[in-house]
């Protein structure tokens, strides 16, 4: 019990520190006093504009997107009893990405600011409906993973098709940049549009803990302990669709957060899938906020995209994880 208090305290401190660093760091460095006066709206109007219009939405987005990705990763890993599961794996991220690309392709994104998030979420919902139909018919985890891979390949292919047939190079650039994932130039509206979906999805996922714990003993034993596996699956897949769909809608695809964060925190909670959920949300929030700060501080002419940074760090990590898992299996 005491260990988990220490863990939560540490993670919350980390999230606050990351948020303050995110508000303070960047092209114009700000002191904590500057941040405070900027947030409260008194003092230099330029300062207020930087904090309120640029930094605060960006930090809020980083926190909510990171929490959604970390929590979704932990929940999916618990459901699939596989430390390599990730929101990208079951096709939700790439289907949301496809929805966004369609918005660009038909020029809808330019017509209305709501077209992009709505179509991205529609993509996530469509992928989820397919997965739910599959899960209702055959509950096995392997089926779920394989269907996810098929869905994800289909979305990627259709995304490529859209780029292939894109009306002009400018549209391709726009799609590509968006797919890379970034928190740059997001408005307060973006941050607030995604929030209710992420909160609702997160609430669904956080209540799945006990069922995920029981699944550690296998599907038969979990059922014999009174866990309704169909409902548990619906809960996790629905929660992931809402949280990740909304995240991708506002930030593009940011990979590997859902993989790395639960993996680092798992030993600290005794490997219990239920107890891993909330810490993973906090850890994800801190990680994405810090990674976004790094993209702003890197001395490059073009700002490096956040999705690129997480992939550069995450992909080698993924490889090491697979190799270690194989060694343990032998």
């Amino acid at each position: 019990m005491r260990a988990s208090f220490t863990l939560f305290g540490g993670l919350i401190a980390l999230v606050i520190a990351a948020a303050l660093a995110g508000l303070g760091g960047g092209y114009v460095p700000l002191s904590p006093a500057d941040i405070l006066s900027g947030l409260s709206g008194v003092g230099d109007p330029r300062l207020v504009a930087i904090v309120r219009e640029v930094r605060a939405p960006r930090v809020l987005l980083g926190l909510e997107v990171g929490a959604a990705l970390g929590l979704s990763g932990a929940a999916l890993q618990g459901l699939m009893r596989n430390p390599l599961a990730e929101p990208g794996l079951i096709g939700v991220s790439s289907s949301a990405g496809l929805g966004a690309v369609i918005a660009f392709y038909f020029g809808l994104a330019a017509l209305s600011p709501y077209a992009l998030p709505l179509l991205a979420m529609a993509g996530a919902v469509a992928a989820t409906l397919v997965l739910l139909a599959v899960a209702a018919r055959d509950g096995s985890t392997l089926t779920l993973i394989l269907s996810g891979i098929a869905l994800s390949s289909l979305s990627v292919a259709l995304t490529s098709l859209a780029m292939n047939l894109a009306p002009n190079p400018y549209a391709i650039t726009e799609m590509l940049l968006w797919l890379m994932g970034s928190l740059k130039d997001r408005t307060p509206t973006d941050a607030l549009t995604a929030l209710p979906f992420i909160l609702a999805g997160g609430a669904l996922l956080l209540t799945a803990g006990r069922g995920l714990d029981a699944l550690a003993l296998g599907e038969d034993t979990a059922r014999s302990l009174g866990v309704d596996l169909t409902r548990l699956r619906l809960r996790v897949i629905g929660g992931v669709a809402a949280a990740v769909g909304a995240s991708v809608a506002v930030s593009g695809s940011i990979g590997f957060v859902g993989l790395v964060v639960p993996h680092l925190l798992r030993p600290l909670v005794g490997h219990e899938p239920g107890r891993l959920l909330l810490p993973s949300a906090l850890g994800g929030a801190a990680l994405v906020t810090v990674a976004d700060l790094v993209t702003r501080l890197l001395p490059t002419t073009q700002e490096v995209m956040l999705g690129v940074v997480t992939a550069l760090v995450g992909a080698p990590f993924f490889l090491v994880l697979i190799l270690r898992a194989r060694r343990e299996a032998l």
Partner: protein
Amino acid sequence: MLTATTLSVRQGGRCVLRNLAFTARRGAVTGLIGPNGVGKSTLLRAIAGLLPHDGHLRIDGQPLPADARERARLIGYLPQGHHLHWPLTVRRTVELGRLPHLGPLGRLGRADRAAVDRVMAATGIAPLSDRAVPTLSGGERARVMLARVLAADAPLLLADEPTAALDPGHQLRILALLRAEATERARAVLVVLHDLSLAARSCDNLILMLPDGGVIAGPTPSVLTAEALRAAYGVSFAVTRLADTPLVVPLTTAPLPAGPSHPQTNAGVLAHAD
């Protein structure tokens, strides 16, 4: 007491168990024996509510509750193999057995902790409390899994080959534990066994499942006859005693009977692949 009448189980459109009738008394250990593929595991899974069934299953005269959590408080099910997907500690693994009793917040109450303490002491795993289950030996792991299923305090206990892959000492210890749970806490214990001598010395009653779909059930000595075993396994047996211990020895093989067999369940295959 568990009572089954006209029990049939269908799997993949095929009737794998037909019209079975048997009982498992409280306070007694009932052994479920029979050749591979005859449907012993299927039967246990059906009783545990993991497979749909036709006919009647009653516990102490009451039909099984439809609600899964309520049923989980009445029936403890220990599947084959001792698989655990995450390296949980021994204590946490045993605590999972209390799941059917927990409230909406999932917190362990005093009664839950007392039940966990009791079964950990009874199975002798209390000193291993903080160890991760994968670091344990096979015998220790078998006792942890047994403690997990005992923790629920269910009146009916189903155990699918709890002695598989254990040395003779551990086999006897596991069965002594099941025996103690049956007599001291008046539970009905239904256990699948392959070692017939072990079944002969540790079960009060036996249910012998035959390849033709029939069942021979009754007190252990009345079921373990050379004729019945030959009909079940297609092998001639010597049924004898050594000192005071019953001994069942297979002798010569006869041609394999062309009885129906059905595929092992996924759970069994996965457990062995591990």
